[in-house]
């Protein structure tokens, strides 16, 4: 118990003093996670909208594949991407291995199915009368799509938050493709794993606290925009 309390006390002092190493790790984590979430959202939201709104041959198969990909372990993705970007891989000449770009590629693969699936769920819940109303009022297909996305914005927002939460907390891809290089590819989770291996808990606990604070902050921000912070009491 004293170990935890001591670690917690030291971790708080690290946070309060804005330790440069800690800030660097947090910065890398946020940069990589935000980039992968943005790219996955740009691909997954339109993709999810298209799948939800279209009736094409093989739609069920696509949905089944997406649901299966939700359970894809990070180490499998790490291994797959590694085989492409390692020196002997077909993308080897690009020298992506052990860079932040490599982590982003892996994380995008990890969360695209999540963003797409949750977008499909959010869009599918929207009453079809919104589509019909927009069209009868003279909306183009794009304007109609924007109406649907606007109505489904909280569901889509939740998809983005879930995706961000998934990548900021993952360790497998960051470790395998980033290599945990100090100052370059060391993220909060890989640093925590390393500190644990070394038996040093102070930085690990500080990073754990930071991670939880970021997750809490992002969710608070989402609820603020959702306008549901006020709960009606009957």
């Amino acid at each position: 118990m004293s170990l935890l309390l001591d670690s917690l006390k030291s971790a708080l002092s690290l946070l309060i003093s804005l330790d440069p190493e800690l800030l660097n790790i947090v910065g890398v984590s946020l940069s990589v996670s935000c980039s992968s979430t943005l790219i996955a959202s740009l691909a997954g939201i339109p993709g999810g909208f298209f799948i939800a709104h279209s009736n094409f041959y093989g739609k069920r198969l696509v949905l089944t594949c997406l649901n299966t990909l939700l359970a894809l372990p990070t180490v499998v993705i790490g291994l797959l991407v590694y085989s492409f970007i390692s020196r002997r891989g077909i993308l080897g000449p690009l020298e992506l291995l052990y860079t932040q770009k490599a982590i982003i590629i892996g994380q995008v693969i990890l969360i695209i199915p999540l963003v797409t699936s949750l977008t499909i769920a959010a869009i599918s819940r929207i009453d079809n009368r919104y589509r019909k109303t927009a069209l009868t009022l003279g909306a183009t297909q794009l304007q109609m799509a924007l109406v649907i996305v606007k109505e489904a914005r909280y569901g889509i927002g939740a998809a983005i938050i879930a995706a961000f939460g998934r990548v900021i907390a993952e360790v497998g891809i960051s470790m395998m493709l980033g290599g945990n290089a100090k100052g370059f590819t060391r993220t909060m989770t890989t640093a925590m794993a390393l500190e644990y291996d070394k038996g040093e808990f102070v930085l690990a606990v500080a990073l754990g606290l930071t991670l939880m604070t970021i997750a809490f902050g992002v969710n608070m921000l989402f609820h603020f925009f959702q306008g549901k912070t006020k709960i009606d009491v009957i």
Partner: protein
Amino acid sequence: MLYEATGLTRTFKGRTVLNLEHLAIESHAIYALIGPNGAGKTTLLNLLAFLDRPTTGTLQFRGLVVRYNRQQLLELRRRIVLVDQYPILFTSSVWKNVGFGLKVRGISKKLRAHRIEQALELVGMEQFRQADAHTLSGGETKRVALARALAIEPEVLLCDEPTANVDQENQEIILQILQRINREHRTSIILATHYLAQSRGLADHTLMLEYGTLSDLTDEIAGNPVFPSQKIAMEE
């Protein structure tokens, strides 16, 4: 002629819900489309609003054959508007809802504001202009949906059961608005209704649909709230 349809059918999963040999609708008049539930009224309105396409047959709008390509559909839809039986308002203010059709047409903010005000005044909802659309009652929602449709000054207004599920006061207001816009703006109106009395008091022409086909509406039936099939059954 406003609409002319020949051999128009609409089939859902092998079941023909609408089968019209010939349908002609004139401009500037009020048409009441009456019939029991499942007669095909909503299906016909969706076809006339170009929100659905027929399984077979041809439909003409002002002499123009509808080809159902994206560009033509957009142009046609911008001349017609359908107010649903259970209209849905977008998650925003009443003002933004009423201005939606104008905004998608790229109408300037100033003109938009003028037309929104006019439409809200016409339906008597001007005091709700800044209200959250989802806080309105059923009758108020119908009136705002009507204002949203009227703001775009359509050539044709299609209304699916405009007075269903609203109180007597709102029913009268809605019917008065329909009469007024037909009289003052010469807007063609086609409304689906269950009520023969309503069609007699409001419409210039009445079309009776039953089992997806048009029935001959005699004066006798027009004055008597029974549908042809019920009448035959009663005679038997």
